[in-house]
């Protein structure tokens, strides 16, 4: 089965004598084509949740099934491979490599996998064009605006056509107009290309693009009904209609 599945996942941080239960018995399924948001106060465990989903952190208890693969059972080397091929990370700040231009930021992801093919370059250009960066291919991160940087990072996350998209506060460094654009892009990618997407955010205005909203509190995850909209993505669709 594809998508991502948490089964009774707990995470205990051990720091000297202190123990922090960062995640407490979390179960959750995110299907392909579904875009969910996780909100919650600082320190509640959101980043931990995302790190586990992204195969960067081991669970203390429970298991994570990603595209049918149990992450607990994979070797470190295969986890690296899985991150490269099946997960697209979008981070709080764009975290681009300072000495690579926009196009190369995407190509380096292909390089990590081995050879760089001609088609990859074409695909990267297409991707950047669809994100409105066609004129910026040769620019270095320092020559870009915050929004452009974040869009480049999004394009980078999509470059390997991952089936899971994970975003940790992708809008934190953006003004509200850019923030809306960026989240729309993620929502759009999840819908049109049938990907499972999880976004951690503080920004409640962004929740309108999501199918489901979960609230994290002291390591527990609860489905939050107050943001549940019967009409699904109409708001998103309205916005797109208006823009066209």
């Amino acid at each position, binding site marked *: 089965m594809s998508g991502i599945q948490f089964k009774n996942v707990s995470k205990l941080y051990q720091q000297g004598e202190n123990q922090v239960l960062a995640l407490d018995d979390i179960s959750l399924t995110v299907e392909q084509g579904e875009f969910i948001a996780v909100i919650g106060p600082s320190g509640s465990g*959101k*980043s931990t949740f*995302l*790190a586990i989903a*992204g195969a*960067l*952190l081991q669970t203390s208890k429970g298991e994570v099934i990603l595209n049918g693969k149990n992450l607990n059972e994979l070797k470190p*080397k295969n986890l*690296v*491979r*899985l*991150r*490269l*091929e099946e*997960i697209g*990370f979008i*981070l*709080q*700040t764009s*975290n681009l*490599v*300072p*000495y*690579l231009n926009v196009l*190369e930021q995407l*190509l*380096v*992801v292909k*390089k*990590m*996998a081995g050879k*760089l093919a001609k088609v990859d370059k074409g695909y990267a250009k297409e991707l950047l064009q669809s994100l409105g960066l066609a004129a910026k291919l040769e620019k*270095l991160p320092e020559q870009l605006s915050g929004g452009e940087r974040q869009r480049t990072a999004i394009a*980078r996350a999509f470059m*390997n056509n991952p089936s899971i998209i994970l975003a*940790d*506060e992708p809008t934190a460094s953006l003004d509200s107009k850019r923030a809306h654009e960026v989240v729309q892009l993620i929502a759009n990618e999840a819908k049109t290309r049938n990907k499972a997407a999880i976004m*951690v955010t503080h920004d409640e205005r962004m929740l309108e693009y999501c199918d489901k909203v979960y609230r994290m509190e002291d390591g527990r995850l609860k489905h939050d009904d107050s943001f549940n909209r019967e009409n699904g993505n109409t708001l998103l669709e309205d916005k797109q209609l208006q823009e066209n």
Partner: protein
Amino acid sequence: MFLAIRELKHGKLRFLMIGVITVMIAWLVFMLSGLGNGLSTLSAATIKNMDATYVTFEDGSRASMSRSLLSESLAEKLENQPNVSAATVMGATMGTILNNSDSGTNEKVDIAILGTTPGSFLEPNVIDGKPLQANESLEVIANDTLKKKGFKIGDTLKIEGSLEKMKIVGFVNNETYNHLPAIFTTLDKWRSIQFAAPGSDKGIEKPVNAIMLQGKNIDSEKLNQLFKNTETVTKSAAVQGMPGYKEENGTIMMMLAFLLAISAFVLGVFFYVLTLQKSNQFGILKALGASNRFLGRAIVSQVFLLSFVSITAGVLLTYGTALILPDEMPFSLDLKLVVLYALLLLVISILSSLVSVRKITKIDPLQAIGRME
């Protein structure tokens, strides 16, 4: 290479600085090796050149010709020993010569006078003129560096503090002994110079300084037992026994070793600091799926490129400097040595980058995620 080259281009200044340091270290390494090579040639070229495998000295002389005195008759006995295919005697004296011809300058020149049997394997081939003759004890062949001092074939030489005269009939190449240009004479001539004072030959009949042996697998232990009062050593031990040879070589080798160690540290520390600075960036790349191998290769290839270019520049600079060095400088570049030290520097710089590679493997991609920002 993808990351390595682009970062080199982007951070030109910082990489240029470290590159310049590497160039200077490499330059110094090659200059030193040239100097060491030049000095050891000057000190012992004749011994190094000779086609012998072992040398027999007087016991207690510690492989030094100047301390050793043997009888020529011993050579014949040595030649009859198993595995010894030939044995030839040699004598060495230091002296000062004056050009006695009308055309010559009156500059005095220090030389080494080497006596040997004409036509033996110890007599080097002449590049100019004719070889020694057994019955012509006036005739000598000289190292061609004397040409620069104004000596020519046919010139007669006066030896200071002696009534002996000599005449140059030929020139040989690259024959220096004890830091001095060598002049080859017959044994008789050499003896009449060396043992001019009565009693200085200690009563030994037909004295010589050493006997050079040819032949593989000579059992030097057995020779030492068989011939009391002798000591047979390998040719390289005889080279080491040349006055000042060990000391000069040791000093230069020590400087080279320090330089190589310094270069390892400078490069190692530089790249380690760079890696530390970029550890967040590496963490992000790891979160995106970069393997340790991918990132490690980026560092190593960067170090390789930088060192390769710098070392090559160092080699070119060295050969450039060699062109403008004064002739008297004992400086000679041996291509084999240059290549060896270049490779050594390259290997050392790559090894030094492994510290950074190790650091990379320890970087946790988790730091790329939210909390750490």
